[in-house]
């Protein structure tokens, strides 16, 4: 392999044995604005729940994209749905809807059409 002088990180999304991105794709169906997230972290910085817990929407969305649902399953409903993140998000992502949809999928096991 050519030596470019830096190391390549292992891709977290290419290992299809552990990556299950169907939830993310369904999420995009239901809430297309999720696709515009640039992982800037504004939502997490302002988060009401983030003051007391590790709840971090930016991270949750990244994990979701990478197909790692189990790691945020227990904490997804720590959000207070207060709406600060939505007001602050520079991309106009419907953050609260994302939390509700992910929660519904993880806990009720389905997202309806």
């Amino acid at each position, binding site marked *: 392999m050519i030596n470019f002088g830096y190391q390549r990180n292992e891709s977290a999304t290419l290992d299809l044995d552990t990556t299950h991105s169907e939830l993310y794709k369904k999420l995009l169906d239901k809430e297309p*604005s999720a696709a515009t997230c640039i992982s800037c972290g504004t939502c997490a910085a302002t988060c009401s729940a983030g003051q007391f817990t590790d709840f971090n929407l930016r991270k949750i969305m990244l994990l979701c994209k990478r197909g790692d649902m189990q790691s945020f399953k227990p904490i997804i*409903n*720590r959000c207070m749905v207060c*709406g600060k993140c939505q007001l602050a998000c520079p991309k*106009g992502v*419907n953050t609260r809807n994302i939390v509700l949809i992910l929660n519904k999928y993880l806990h009720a096991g389905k997202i309806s059409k």
Partner: protein
Amino acid sequence: MQERLVNSFDPFVIPYTFGLIFLLTYLFIALIRVIQALPNDDKFKLLKHIFSLKIFKSMKEIFLECLLHVKIWKKNWTLGYMHTALAFGWFMLIILGHFEVQLFAPHRLNLPWYPIFFRYFMMETETTMQGSFFFFMMDLTLLLVLSGLVLAIIKRFRRKLFGMKRTTKLRWNDQIAVIALWSIFPLRFLAESFYSEISGGSFLTAGMGSIFHWFYNFTENEIYIRPIWWAYSIALAVFFIMLPWSRFTHILTEPLFIIMRNAGIREEHRNSGYGKVEIYSCSRCGICLDPCQLVSVASLRDSAAINYTRHLRLWKSEKAHQAASICLMCNRCTKACPVGVDTAALKLNTKHEVVTFHTDQQYDYLTSKTAESGAEPAIAKTLEPTDVIYFAGCMTHLTPATKLAMTKILETSGERFSFIDEDGSICCGRPVLLAGARKSANELMKKNAELFKQTNAKILVTSCPICYKFFKENYDLDMRVLHHSQYIQELLKEGKIKVDPNGAKIVFHDPCELGRNSGVYDAPREVLKSVGELQSTAYDGAESLCCGHSIATESLPYRKRHMIANDAVEKLTTDHPDVLATACPACKKAFSETNKIAVKDLAEIVAENLKC
């Protein structure tokens, strides 16, 4: 008057009678099912109401709203006249018809078709002329109904005359019912006119009859005009049969809805009987279409109140939930609805049926350190006793000018206060309730109430109308709850703060949650008048627009929110004010993003002009 025919029956009465029996049976079964579905204490409330004097109040309301349609008159005279003419006119035709039978052929009262086809079976005699009064009254009422009908037809093409930009789109079932309804009265008019030579009539029917007679003598060829009675009877039958499956169901459900509402029953669930009656009481009049900004600005017609109730009627729960989750809950539609269908409450129920958000561990971080972060639990804070507590609210922290202004005002006033969420807080719980998770909201409420109580304060002031509404109506707090506009008004009145008027031209935008949803309209205006020149707009008070950034919507795309905000700012600033004032962080953010005009919270305007 006397009976013209020995026979009190003619085959053409069969369709009508069949339709009537069908309708009454349906009505009876539906009524039983609705009452069965009511929870027991609601059944009791209903009984108590029916056997109390309050029932007369309901009767009056039924007369005013279901027959005279007073609320629609207030909206637009032509529209009001149209509704009154059709509903009250038809009602009078039925009542007068029964009077006639009672007076002139009482032994026929047991035949349901007799009052309807009275003029076929009866005739006026030269000698008595006793019926002429009724002939006159019946013709007058028929004229009233026909005039309403003409207006209803005109309305389909020229709705602007009726003060409406948009009107209901008819589905096939509504179309059949409408065509049947529209045929009933012209057919009756024709039949009675043709027969006026035989059975008598007044200015309308006899007048028309003599014109017909001029062309051709139908009287001698009765057999040729009999089919008109058939057509009339069939039109009635079709209408009766379609009634439970069309928009006209409301004719039957609305009176029951009024009685239930006055009995104090509220919907807990859309299938709780009351919810059902409420959904079917929507007359699909379309009056809620124009006020809804989702329709007028964002082209999301499917989410309007009228279509939401239709989704429920058709058991399309997924669509109903979609509509509910997009809705801004601004209540512009419920304010306009002449029937008083509380679609906002119904939508909340729809969300509660679908959403499963609450778990026992959900907010355990409020009372104990969590394993993950180890941060101090929210409730561990102890608050010092004080007189006034200021709760800025989550979103006010994102528009910090407001909280800084409030701190300045509170400091100047000399009141003993504490800014309890200076370092952040937990949410008041209303947003999660609006998202459909009542139990989660209860947990947040409990924690907040505990915190507030520690302070023994007399007054709780908040800068967020969402918090205000919730603290005021849903928390059981032992203190006065004020929005900052109300508190500033009091401080000004008591002379605790003074302002230098600066003469700026100000337009005030009433936030939905503060104005329409909590009824606070005057305080903000009084405050602003003390600083500048308040301009009025067409959207003051209860007419106020939604900024589009309502916390109630989960799925309205940002682009649409922005369109609504833009449109609202344009409408509010036609008189070129210097500043657009509001009293809610969400409105402020929404309007600022349009970059059209300086947007300020009223607290900022006051703080800038404080006399220190």
